[in-house]
C-alpha cells in the first residue's frame, strides 16, 4: 500500500505550501485524483488521518475530486471523457487512442485556511 507514502508526501507538500502562501491553520486540502493515478481514494484518506497526527495540519479535512480519464481522439479531433479507465477508445467513434489528456493527476489543488490573514485577499500561489 503506497498510499501511506503518498500521504506523507502530501502532508509535507501541504505544510510547505501553507508556509509559502501564508495560509494559517489549514482547514481543508483539496486534491485532484485521476482514476489512472493508481491511488485508492479510501486508502489515501485513511493514511492521511494517520499521518497528519501531530503535524501543523492536524484536524484538516481532505476533499478529493475524482478526475476521469480524458482522451483525445485523432479521428473526431476532440477530447472525450471515458466512463471507465479502459478500454482506451473514443466513446464516440470507438477508435483506440492512447493520448491521455487527464486522469493521471495526483495533485494538491488548493488549500483553505481557517483564519483571515492580515489585510491580504486571496492571492495566487508563488511559483
Amino acid at each position, binding site marked *: 500500500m*503506497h498510499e501511506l507514502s503518498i500521504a506523507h508526501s502530501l502532508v509535507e507538500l501541504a505544510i510547505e505550501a501553507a508556509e509559502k502562501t501564508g495560509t494559517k491553520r489549514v482547514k481543508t486540502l483539496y486534491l485532484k485524483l485521476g482514476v*489512472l493515478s493508481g491511488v485508492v481514494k479510501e486508502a489515501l484518506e485513511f493514511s492521511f488521518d494517520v499521518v497528519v497526527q501531530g503535524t501543523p495540519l492536524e484536524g484538516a479535512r481532505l476533499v478529493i475530486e475524482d478526475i476521469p480519464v480524458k482522451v483525445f481522439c485523432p479521428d473526431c479531433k476532440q477530447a472525450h471523457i471515458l466512463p471507465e479507465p479502459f478500454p*482506451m477508445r473514443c466513446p464516440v467513434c470507438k477508435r*483506440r487512442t492512447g493520448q491521455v489528456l487527464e486522469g*493521471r493527476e495526483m*495533485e*494538491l489543488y*488548493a488549500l483553505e485556511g*481557517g483564519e483571515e490573514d492580515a489585510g491580504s485577499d*486571496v492571492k495566487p500561489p508563488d511559483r
Partner: protein
Amino acid sequence: MQEVTLNPRIVEIRQNILKKNDVLARELRKGFQEAGVYVINLVSSPGAGKTTLLTEMLTRLGERYGVAALVGDLATENDAERLRLSGAQVRQITTGTVCHLDAEMVKRNLEGWDLEAIDFLFIENVGNLVCPASYDLGENQRVVLFSVTEGEDKPVKYPTIVNSADTAVITKIDLAEAVGFQRECFYEALNEVRPGIPIFEVSVRTGEGIEEWIAHLEAGKAAFEKAAGCL
C-alpha cells in the same frame, strides 16, 4: 452572542503530490543522459520471471556493454546473489516494508558507481503491479512483465501500471501451449489499456525471443544517444 465569521481563504497550489520525487527523477534522468546511461525500470507481479530475464539480459548485454542493476526487494539478498553470477555490478535495495522504489532510493544506491562506465542500468522494481506505477525513477523505458501463467485479464486489472509502461514483455512463452495461453486475448487486453504498446514474447529457458528483445533495448539506447547528441 455575536457570530464571528472567519473569512475562509482558498489558495491555489496546483502541485503534484509527488513533486519531490518527480524533481529528483528529472535530475537523475539528466545525470543518466549526460553519462550515457540507458535506464530500464522493470515492473511485474512476483513470480513473473523478472530476475531470470534480468540475469539473461545482464549476461548477454554484459558481453558488449557496461551493465549494472539495482534490485528492489522486500527482504532478501537472494535475488542480488543470483544476479551477481552474471558478472554485472548489482546492488540490492532493501525497501523494508515499502512496496515500491522511489527516486531517492535510486539516487542513494548509485553512490560510488562510475556512471560513465555503465551503458545499461536495469532497475528491478519491487514485485507489485500497483505501487511502482506512481514513482518516476528517472528511467528511459518502463517495462511491464507478465508471464503466460498470469491470465489474460491481468492487464485490465492493473490499468495504471500498464498505461504508464513503454513496453510489455510476456515471459515463459515456452509454457504458452501447456497453460493454454490465449495470445489474442492478452494482446487485446494490453491494447485496451495502453493502445499500441510494443509487446515482446520471450523464454529464457529456450532462448525464444531473447535476441529480438535485446535488439529492442539496443535500439532504445541508440535512439537515446541520438537524442542526447541533439541537446
